[in-house]
C-alpha cells in the first residue's frame, strides 16, 4: 500500500535554515545541511528545500548547499526558490535535485510547466501554489514568497497546472504557515478533488491530529512539515507512530 509521505520542508536564507510565520518574521533555526541529514536519518520520506532569497548573487552558495546535501542523502530532494527557466531547472536537477518546485515563474509564464515536464518528465515538475485566504473567505495565489497578490484563484489554477504537465502540487497555506493552527482543510479538500495529481499539504501543522485530519478521506497525499520538526516539538518517528496508530499507512 502506498504510504503517506512525511516531507520536512527546509526554508533557507543566506545559508541558514530559517522559519517564519505567514512566510514572514524569519527566525534562524540552524544550518540546512545538518537538519536535512538528520531528517533523512530519522526516516523522512523526501525533503523540500526552498531558497527564500533566490538572488543570483547568492546562487553559488545555494547550489553548493544543494549539492552537498544531495551527495549525502538517498531520498528524493525537491528544490524551490527563484527557478525561472528550463535552464535554471536543469542547473538544479544536475546539481542533485530530483524535482523543482516553482510558483512565481509559472504564474508569469504557465508554459514553463510544460517545457520543464517535457524536458525532464512530469515527476520533476512540482507546481508550488502559495495561497492566502482573503477576508471574504476566498483564496488567492501569492508570489514572491507571499509578497505579491496575483488575483489567481488556486482551484482552477490547480487544474491548469495538472493539464500543463505538473507531476505534483505543493500547496502552501500562507495564512496558516508557522501558526501550528493546522492545515486549511477546506482548501485542501477542494484542491485535492480538483486535481488528479498528488497534493502535498504545507503550512500550519501543529499536532499529530492536524496531520491525521489532512490525510483522512482522500485529501493530502503527502505532508510537508517545518516548525514542528525544526523547533523539536515532534520528531519524524513520533509523527509516523502517531499516524500509524490512526491506521494511516506510513513507512517505518
Amino acid at each position: 500500500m502506498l504510504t503517506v509521505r512525511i516531507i520536512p520542508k527546509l526554508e533557507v536564507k543566506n545559508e541558514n535554515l530559517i522559519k517564519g510565520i505567514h512566510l514572514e518574521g524569519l527566525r534562524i533555526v540552524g544550518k540546512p545541511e545538518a537538519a536535512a541529514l538528520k531528517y533523512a536519518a530519522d526516516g523522512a520520506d523526501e525533503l523540500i528545500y526552498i531558497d527564500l532569497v533566490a538572488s543570483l548573487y547568492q546562487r553559488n552558495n545555494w547550489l553548493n548547499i544543494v549539492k552537498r546535501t544531495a551527495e549525502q542523502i538517498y531520498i528524493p530532494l525537491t528544490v524551490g526558490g527563484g527557478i525561472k527557466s528550463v535552464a535554471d531547472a536543469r542547473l538544479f536537477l544536475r546539481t542533485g535535485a530530483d524535482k523543482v518546485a516553482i510558483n512565481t515563474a509559472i504564474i508569469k509564464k504557465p508554459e514553463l510547466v510544460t517545457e520543464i515536464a517535457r524536458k525532464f518528465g512530469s515527476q520533476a515538475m512540482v507546481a508550488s501554489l502559495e495561497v492566502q485566504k482573503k477576508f471574504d473567505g476566498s483564496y488567492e495565489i501569492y508570489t514572491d514568497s507571499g509578497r505579491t497578490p496575483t488575483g489567481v484563484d488556486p482551484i482552477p489554477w490547480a487544474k491548469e497546472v495538472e493539464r500543463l504537465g505538473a507531476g505534483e502540487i505543493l500547496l502552501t497555506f500562507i495564512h496558516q504557515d508557522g501558526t501550528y493552527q493546522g492545515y486549511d482543510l477546506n482548501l485542501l479538500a477542494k484542491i485535492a478533488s480538483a486535481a488528479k495529481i498528488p497534493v502535498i499539504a504545507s503550512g500550519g501543522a501543529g499536532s499529530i491530529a492536524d496531520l491525521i485530519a489532512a490525510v483522512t478521506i482522500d485529501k493530502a497525499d503527502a505532508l510537508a512539515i517545518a516548525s514542528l520538526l525544526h523547533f523539536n516539538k515532534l520528531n519524524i518517528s513520533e509523527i509516523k507512530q502517531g499516524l500509524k496508530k490512526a491506521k494511516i499507512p506510513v513507512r517505518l
Partner: protein
Amino acid sequence: MSNKIALIDYGLGNLFSVARALTFAKADWFFATKPDQLKKADKLVLPGVGAFADGIAGLKAKKLDKAIKSEVDKGKPILGICLGMQLMVTTGYEFGTHAGLDLIPGIVEKMSSRAKLPQIGWNEVKLVKSEIPLFKGIADNDWFYFVHSYVVRPKDKTMVAATTNYGDDVFCSVVEYNRIWGTQFHPEKSGPTGLKIYANFVNQV
C-alpha cells in the same frame, strides 16, 4: 575477477543519483554513451526517467539498443530501473505503440488503478520468488520509492519476482528473467534498503 559496470547514458533523465548509489556500493563503474563501451563492461545498468518513446529513441540515436541486446545475449547481467525496466520489454503502449528492446517478453501499459496517477511515494514490495539475488538481506514487504504511471506486464508469470499493490492494481515491481533484472521503483532514492539493491547487483549476480 573483473566486475566493471556500464551505467548507460542515453541522454534521458538524471544519472547523478544512480551514479552516486553505484559509488556507494563500491562498484567499479563508468558512463557508457557508445555501443563499443558496453563490450568492456561485465554488467549493465539501464536507468531512465521519462516517456517510453523518448527512451527508445534515445537508445537508438546512440545505437545502444542493438549493443545492449547483443551483450545481454552473451549472458551479461543487466539491471533496468524504472523506465529502464520498461524499455527492456517487447512493446510499450505509452502514447502509441512502440517496440522495446525485447529482452523480456511482455508489454508496458498504464496502470488500471483507480488511484491517482502517477503513483508517487513509498510502497511495499512483496517478494513472490525466493532467493532473488538482488534482494539478499532485504526483508519481504520492505518499502521503496516509486514514481510512475505505467507498469510492466511480463508475458510469463515466472518472470515476476515481486509485486506491489496500488489502488486496485497488483503490478510487477521487480522482474527477473535469466540474468535480467528490473525494478519499477528507484532503489537509488529508497534510502539504505535501496542501496542494498545496488550492492547486491555488484556482489551477488
